């Protein structure tokens, strides 16, 4: 968990040194600029790193949203899917599996864990209150971490960046190629999810279940299957996020906790239950965190998300894009 902070900072340090080195070497493509330009460059740098981490928070928040809509359950094991994606890929690659296959197997494994979580922990408690179900997911999250300690280990691990580690200079700041993978991957997943929900009958059935569970059952939608599907999908989305971000932030058996909390904050900021809100909330939390770390102190970086939750709860409990219940009687 604490590993997220130094990992990002080591990286920032590298980038700064890298740029400085190019300055000293008199490279043409690095503009030498004044104070105003430096401020701008620093700002951009924070935006890039904020969007990168924010993209992963967005994916976690999207997972929360899917499960919440299908069941009113907030699945706090959501962050652990991120860990399974990252750790699974690391260990499969260490065992000699090529990256694409390692990713595929790790994501499938995360989906299986998601389905098992639904089948063994959520489904038997059907009819329990949402609060009880949320407790169950917290327990499941602790259990998953325990198993991960045994199956994997307690060390931090990283993955090689997918397409090199040469920073790309944009407007005086630099961005890692892996950041494009993370942000692009997030956008692709969001688009894919949108296509699934809006363009397929099964997707519509998921939306229908979210809108009105009684009516969904009456038209013959099996809401248990829909909920299992939501768990499987959210696991896949989280795991892919974990794979994409691991080259930047490192991973360990317990990184899921912080991802879950940040993703939860993102979902709350965006308005729990709204997919667009989840994405916007995730990016916002990522940006706020980056700015908090860059301009205030990196010590309080993790506090930013929680301050955001508090502010949202106090000022606008429904979030930015919260569900407005306009139903005619």
């Amino acid at each position: 968990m604490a590993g997220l902070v130094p990992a990002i900072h080591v990286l920032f340090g590298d980038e700064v040194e890298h740029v400085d080195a190019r300055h000293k070497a008199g490279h043409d493509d690095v503009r030498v600029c004044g104070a105003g330009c430096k401020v701008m460059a620093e700002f951009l740098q924070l935006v890039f790193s904020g969007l990168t981490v924010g993209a992963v928070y967005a994916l976690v928040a999207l997972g929360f949203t899917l499960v919440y809509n299908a069941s009113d359950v907030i699945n706090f094991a959501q962050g652990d899917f991120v860990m399974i994606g990252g750790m699974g890929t690391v260990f499969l690659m260490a065992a000699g599996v090529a990256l694409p296959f390692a990713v595929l197997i790790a994501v499938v494994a995360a989906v299986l864990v998601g389905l098992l979580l639904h089948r063994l922990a959520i489904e038997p408690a059907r009819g329990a209150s949402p609060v009880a179900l949320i407790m169950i997911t917290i327990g499941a999250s602790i259990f998953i971490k325990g198993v991960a300690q045994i199956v994997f280990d307690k060390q931090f691990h990283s993955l090689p960046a997918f397409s090199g580690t040469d920073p790309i200079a944009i407007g005086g700041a630099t961005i890692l190629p892996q950041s494009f993978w993370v942000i692009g991957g997030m956008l692709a997943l969001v688009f894919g999810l949108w296509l699934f929900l809006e363009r397929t009958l099964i997707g519509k059935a998921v939306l229908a279940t979210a809108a009105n569970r009684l009516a969904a059952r009456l038209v013959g939608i099996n809401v248990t299957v829909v909920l299992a599907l939501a768990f499987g999908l959210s696991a896949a989305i989280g795991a892919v996020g974990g794979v994409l971000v691991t080259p930047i932030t490192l991973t360990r058996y317990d990184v899921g906790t912080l991802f879950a909390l940040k993703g939860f904050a993102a979902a709350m900021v965006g308005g729990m239950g709204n997919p667009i809100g989840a994405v916007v909330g995730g990016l916002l939390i990522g940006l706020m965190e980056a700015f908090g770390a860059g301009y205030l102190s990196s010590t309080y970086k993790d506090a930013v998300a929680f301050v955001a939750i508090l502010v949202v709860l106090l000022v606008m409990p429904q979030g930015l894009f919260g569900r407005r219940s306009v139903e005619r009687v």
Partner: protein
Amino acid sequence: MLTVDGLSSAYGRIEVLHGISLDVPAGEIVALVGSNGAGKTTLLRTLSGVQPASAGRIVFQGEDIQALPPHARVMRGIAQSPEGRQVFGPLTVEDNLRLGAFRRWDDTVRGRLEAVYTMFPVLAERRRTPASSLSGGQQQMLAIGRALMAQPKLLLLDEPSLGLAPLLVDQILAAVVDLKQKGITVLLVEQNASAALAIADRGYVLEVGRIVHEGEGRALLQDPKVRAAYLGV
């Protein structure tokens, strides 16, 4: 077509249906009337399988369907238009209708959709709008249309006239008679007893979870006890 025998149902430990027995013959409209809280909606929900039964049998076309989950009952031909419309608010009118055919998805969906639009032209006009923005009457039509998309043999209609203007009530009830002529059996639950019994072949009066009167629709309408208790005369 449908025979209910000694059906009981409870919410937690509170039993709300106490041994209901009734018959819905094929091709008829059967009205189930009674005041608020009599258990009408609970009965329909139990028939659809979204509310568990604690005792009794539900026999549909010779098969005991009591243990079947809701979707299996839809597949056998029982569809419900629930009390309070229960449309999928954020989804468009057309998506609501298409989801009605969720368990009956084949090449005839397009045709069924057109049939519903012919029956309720206003739904065709608003096919791309979210169901939540429809008026109460339009939502009622949508709920009925959605149930029809499942190609039901037996249509369960829960309070289709609730909260509607008198003109709309007539329009909805005329549509119900229409459905009967198309060969669909209807079990109609209504608080508006006189309107329901007027179009029904058979009627049952439900009172705190028990059937207290039964008979031909028009005969019940004339029954002094029924008139006194439910028709306010």
